[in-house]
C-alpha cells in the first residue's frame, strides 16, 4: 500500500484541500476521531504558516513505517524567507499567526515527532509524524 498526497499551497482554499487529504489518509490508516482532528489541525497550522509567511509551498502527507509501527507523516516545505531564530519560534508564547495557543510548539505537541529545518532566505522544511497506537 502506498498512500501519498501532495497539495500545493497558494491560498486559503489550499489549506482546506490539505486538511481534507490529511483527514482522508488518517481515516484510511485507522486513526480514531480525536487523532484525526489533531492531525488535521497540525496540517492546517503548517499550511497556514506557508500561506502567511512564504506565500507558496507544498504540504505532502504520506504513510510511514518504522519497524512494526505505522504512522502518518506530514512534510511542509517552502522556499520562503526562512526562520531566523528557530529556538524563538519554538518557544511557547511566541505566536506567529497571533492565535491563542497556535504556532509550531502547539503542532509539535499534537504530533509524536517533529523536526524543523530552516535557512534564512532559502526556506523552511518541517516534518511531523503521528504514530498509530
Amino acid at each position, binding site marked *: 500500500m502506498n498512500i501519498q498526497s501532495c497539495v500545493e499551497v497558494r491560498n486559503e482554499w489550499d489549506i482546506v484541500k490539505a486538511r481534507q487529504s490529511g483527514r482522508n489518509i488518517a481515516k484510511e490508516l485507522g486513526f*480514531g*476521531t*480525536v487523532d484525526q*482532528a*489533531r492531525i*488535521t*489541525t497540525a496540517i492546517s497550522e503548517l499550511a497556514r504558516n506557508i500561506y502567511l509567511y512564504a506565500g507558496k509551498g507544498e504540504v505532502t502527507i504520506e504513510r510511514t513505517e518504522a519497524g512494526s509501527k505505522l504512522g502518518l507523516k506530514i512534510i511542509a516545505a517552502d522556499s520562503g524567507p526562512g526562520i531566523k531564530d528557530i529556538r524563538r519560534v519554538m518557544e*511557547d*508564547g511566541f505566536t506567529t499567526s497571533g492565535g*491563542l*495557543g*497556535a504556532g509550531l*510548539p*502547539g503542532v509539535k*505537541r*499534537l504530533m509524536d515527532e517533529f523536526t524543523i529545518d530552516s535557512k534564512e532566505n532559502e526556506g523552511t522544511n518541517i516534518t511531523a509524524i503521528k504514530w498509530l497506537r
Partner: protein
Amino acid sequence: MDDRDLQYEKYKSILENYLEEQSEQTLYKGQQFSRKMIEQQISPEEAVSLHVSVLEELFPDLPEPLKNSYDFLLEMMIGYGFAYREHQSLRNRQQQLESEIEVAANMQQTLLAGKKPEVDNLDIGAISKPAQKMNGDYYHFVQDENDCVSVAIADIIGKGIPAALCMSMIKYAMDSAPEQRMQPGAVLENLNRVVEQNVDPNMFITMFYGLYDSRVHSFYYAGAGHEPGFFYDSEKDQFEELFTKGLVLGVSKKTSYREYQRVLNGNDMVIMLSDGVTECRSSQGFIERDEIVAMIRKYIHLSAQEIVDSVYKELERLQEFELRDDFTLLILRRKV
C-alpha cells in the same frame, strides 16, 4: 482493563446515573471526576471524545445529525486543547524559572554573607531580609589586622534580579580597591565613578560607608543619598540623626563626598538602616523614624544582634508578615 477502559467505565456509570436522576450528588461526582481527569492531563478533546463514545454505546440509534455535531464539537475542542497544552508547558517553564531564581538567590547569599567581625570592644548586630527572593539591599563588613572595622550599607533603587546583579558589581568594585578602605569619602567617589560608567541611568544606588577605628574609638563615615542612620549617645541617653551630605551614586560624574567623624564612648551606638526599615507600613500608615527609635530603645538592654532581630520581628508583625521593601538594619556598639 487499562486506565482508559477504567476511565470509560467510571464516566459511563456517572453519566448513566445522571441521566436516570438529575441529582446534585451525581453532579458533585462529575466534578470530582473532572478534577481527576485534569490531574491525569486529559485534554479537552479527549474529554469530549470520551463523552461521545459513552453516548454512542448508551444510545446506538443516535440521530445522524447529532453524531455529526459531535464531530464538529471535537474539532472545536482541538483549539482549546492547543491552548491547554500551551498553558501546561508555560507552567512547567515558570516552575523551572522559579527554581533558577532560587539558585541565584542562594548564590547571592553566599556572595554577600560577609562574616560579622569579631572585635573585642565592639558589639555588632546585622540583619538583612529581602522582600522578594533576591535582596536589593547590601551590607558588608571588613575587619583588618588593626581591628579597624569598615561597614557598607547600600540600597539599590529597584528590587529583584536587576538590583541583585548591580549589587554584585558594587561588591566587586569595593573588593578591588582595598587601599581606599580607610577613607569613606574616597570609597564613595570611586564607587560613584563605577556606577556612573556601568549602570543603566535609571538605576540608582544609595550608600552609607563607615569605618570604625577601635584604637581611637572613632567612627568615620560618608553617605551618598542614603537613609540617615542614628547615633546613640549613652551618657545623654539620646538618639541623634547621623546626617550626611552627598549625591546618590551614579547621578553625576564628578561628585565629592564629605567625611564626618564621631567618637564613641562606652555603650554608644551607630545604627545604620535601609529605607525598607523606615518605609514599613502598618495598617496605621508609614512607620515614623521616631517609632523605630522607640523600638530600639525598648530592646536596648539586649545585645546588638538581639536588638536588630527583635526590631525586625516587631516590624514584620506590624506589617502582617508582608515585607514591601528589602529590610536591612545594622548596629555597632562600643562595649564598656
